[in-house]
């Protein structure tokens, strides 16, 4: 089973480390060809304008949309959430508000409880983080901070405004790996 990590810019190595610790094989994704044969995808944190320009330059928008539409599980964190929203790839029926919590001086960490997640709260690191400003009916809100949605799920796509990979919490990555394993099991032999 191979999990792709979009690596145009951002903290893709932190994600790869968490995935590898959980036993997954990872592949750095920089071009459409890198998407062939992956069973799950992470869109990491980073600068959303840089990533948007990179997706455009590489011609990755359509292949990424197709990948998600085919049912491949996708996890987006921070800039990853922004990339998935209506104004960017349009994979999630949400509008993210960029830098919603403010500049770096307002960046923070906090304990967050996610709907459906067992165990202790997740230590969430918010860095110049967005939140979900608007959402469609099919979008389930899994967590809020001060009334602002910061974790959402729509079908096979999970997106959060924070960085579980920075605190090293692997539970959201485990969710991705479970979905990816289910998907691989359905592949024709």
């Amino acid at each position, binding site marked *: 089973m191979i999990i792709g990590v979009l690596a*145009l*810019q951002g903290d893709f190595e932190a994600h790869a480390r968490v995935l590898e610790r959980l036993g997954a094989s990872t592949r750095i994704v920089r071009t459409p060809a890198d998407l062939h044969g992956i069973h799950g995808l992470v869109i990491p944190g980073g600068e959303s*304008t840089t990533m948007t320009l990179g997706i455009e330059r590489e011609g990755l928008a359509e292949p990424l949309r197709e990948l998600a539409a085919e049912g491949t599980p996708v996890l987006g964190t921070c800039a990853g959430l922004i990339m998935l929203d209506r104004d960017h790839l349009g994979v999630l029926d949400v509008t993210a508000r960029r830098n919603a919590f403010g500049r*770096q*001086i307002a960046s923070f960490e906090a304990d967050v409880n996610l709907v459906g997640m067992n165990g202790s709260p997740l230590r969430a*690191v918010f860095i*110049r983080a967005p939140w979900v400003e608007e959402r469609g009916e099919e979008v389930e809100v899994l967590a809020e901070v001060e009334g602002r949605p910061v974790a959402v799920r729509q079908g096979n796509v999970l997106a959060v405004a924070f960085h579980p990979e920075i605190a090293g919490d692997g539970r959201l990555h485990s969710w991705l790996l479970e979905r990816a394993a289910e998907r691989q099991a359905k592949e024709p032999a």
Partner: protein
Amino acid sequence: MDRVRDTATFRVKAGLAEMLKGGVIMDVVTPEHARVAEAAGAAAVMALERVPADIRKVGGVARMSDPSMIEGIQGAVTIPVMASARIGHFAEAHVLEALEVDYIDESEVPPPADEANHIDKWRFKVPFVCGATNLGEALRRLGEGAAMIRTKGEAGTGNVVEEVRHMRAIQGEIRRLGSLDEAELAAAAKELRAPLDLVREVGENGRLPVVNFSAGGIATPADAALMMQLGAEGVFVGSGIFKSEDPERTAAAIVEATTHFDDPARVAQASHGLGAAMGGIEIAELEAPGGGGLIQHRGW
């Protein structure tokens, strides 16, 4: 539901540098420059009073940018805005924190304000990036609270040779620490003049505990690819963009080469038809009498 927010933790400070990885941080002096940098794909901009090449040419004491210029740049772009304070000049750093810049570069490019002490960076909420010429210097800066490291290189020269020297020194010393036992690590800490706990951590993990960028001489896409292959996790480009013939295209090309640093065909593609790069300066000319000397020896 209200929850406790912990701000300015080291994880939050170093975390922003993680988000800049694989990216290009560009020196800018005006909001117009900042817009060009953002449109080309910069991961952040560094607001300076003058680019290093001009500081070299004109001389005198370069200082923190005018706050109205910094605010203009903050208003022009949505990517992080960094700004530089002189070594040891904690009052400049306090002003930059009050302006809510996203990162402070305690920089050797303007002459130091304190010849003995760097800024106590633990006292600030805004994270700091500091220059280093070797591993000991990098770890001393981390001990003072820096959350990101960059090489010093030789700013404003368009000559990548010093940047290569510093990156190779840092990476080589990291590899060496990996081969030492506990007793040898203690001796290495003394030799590096660096805190033992940090020396031990680097030896165990085989990397710095924070992100390490390259800075101080990059002028072409191939320069950026070189530094990334030598272990840089991203690059700063100073005079190399706005002193080139075609800043827009040069900026975008360096961004592309930084992403695809290990794919020579892509670096070649990015390098096509950019026009003249900034003029370069041979290091020996700077070291010669009347050559102005090297900036990298500022700081310790």
